[in-house]
């Protein structure tokens, strides 16, 4: 019973941690992409002939801004499915 309680505690806090990782990462990424795209739209409105050149850069920057968030999601998935913190209770 004691072990079950400990496992449940670890899992609960891990769940909260996963939510924070993904949520805060998503917030940062979306705000960053929103700012970048608003600037792109502004530039496109001022100079429509630059749209193709700017659009290529937009996609590149999209991937770069998303990077930390995706790395965070990868780590969160690791904790969700292969939680290393459980090893101390499971005697692993």
């Amino acid at each position, binding site marked *: 019973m004691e072990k079950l309680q400990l496992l449940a505690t670890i899992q609960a806090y891990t769940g909260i941690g996963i939510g924070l990782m993904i949520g805060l990462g998503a917030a940062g990424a979306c705000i960053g992409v929103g700012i970048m795209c608003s600037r792109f739209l502004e530039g496109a409105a001022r100079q429509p002939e630059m749209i193709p050149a700017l659009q290529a850069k937009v996609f590149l920057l999209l*991937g770069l801004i998303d990077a930390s968030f995706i790395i965070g999601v*990868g780590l969160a998935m690791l904790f969700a*499915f292969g939680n290393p913190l459980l090893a101390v209770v499971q005697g692993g």
Partner: protein
Amino acid sequence: MAAEQVTPTSYINHHLTFNARPVGEGGGGFWTLHVDTLVTSVILGVLVLGFLWWVVRGATAGVPGRRQAFVELFIGFIDDQVKGIFQGDRHKFVAPVALTVFVWVLLMNAMDFIPVDWIAWLMENVFHQPHWRPVPTADVNTTFALALSVWLLMVFFHIRTKGVGGWVHELFCSPFGSHPLLWLPNLLFNAVEYISKPLSHSLRLFGNMYAGEIIFILLWIWAATGLVGTILGGVLGAGWAIFHILIVGLQAYIFMMLTIVYLQMGHEHH
């Protein structure tokens, strides 16, 4: 699959386990080979190189045939990207590296389009392998291998451009200045830059592919639970698959662009 009851956890674990072989005495841990990653990446690399070599062998200076035109489109695209970033003789090394990296990473990422269950069925029933991960770039080892190779090339170009003395001088004296008191801040600053480049380069690609795979697996688990699950899981799965097509190409493109940028930074003079 196997005879015992398939639970969500066992399904996920089955699809996320590498086909690992320990090598050497006391193998395991670091000294493990991921056979699935190695075999898939080698086969795809041979396919890519073989196709390009085959087309180039039959290339004519006159009116190009269809496959030659297709390859020329690709090479023209890559050459444009490299031209915009890399000053200096790009045809000797950097443009071919960019082409190789782009096409190889694109094909490795595209392995994600094949449904995981088809691969699992094929591997279990035809080749008798219990575990097989089809996407090489969803393995940290692959992305780190690529990123570290690019990093080593960058350092090599740095040293070739400035000499070993010049490189060490730059490590300690830029960007803040050459006063001896600033040597340590300079070194720390440069160390952070040098360490973060390969880390972000590799983990970005890995994270995108790994997260994509996991979300596919989770969606298919949901689709296996009752009628509502199947409908919603199918719809969302289709949506995610379409989005993933964009991500696959985009991540390969970003990996290539960063390769070119890092190689260009290795050629810079301050």
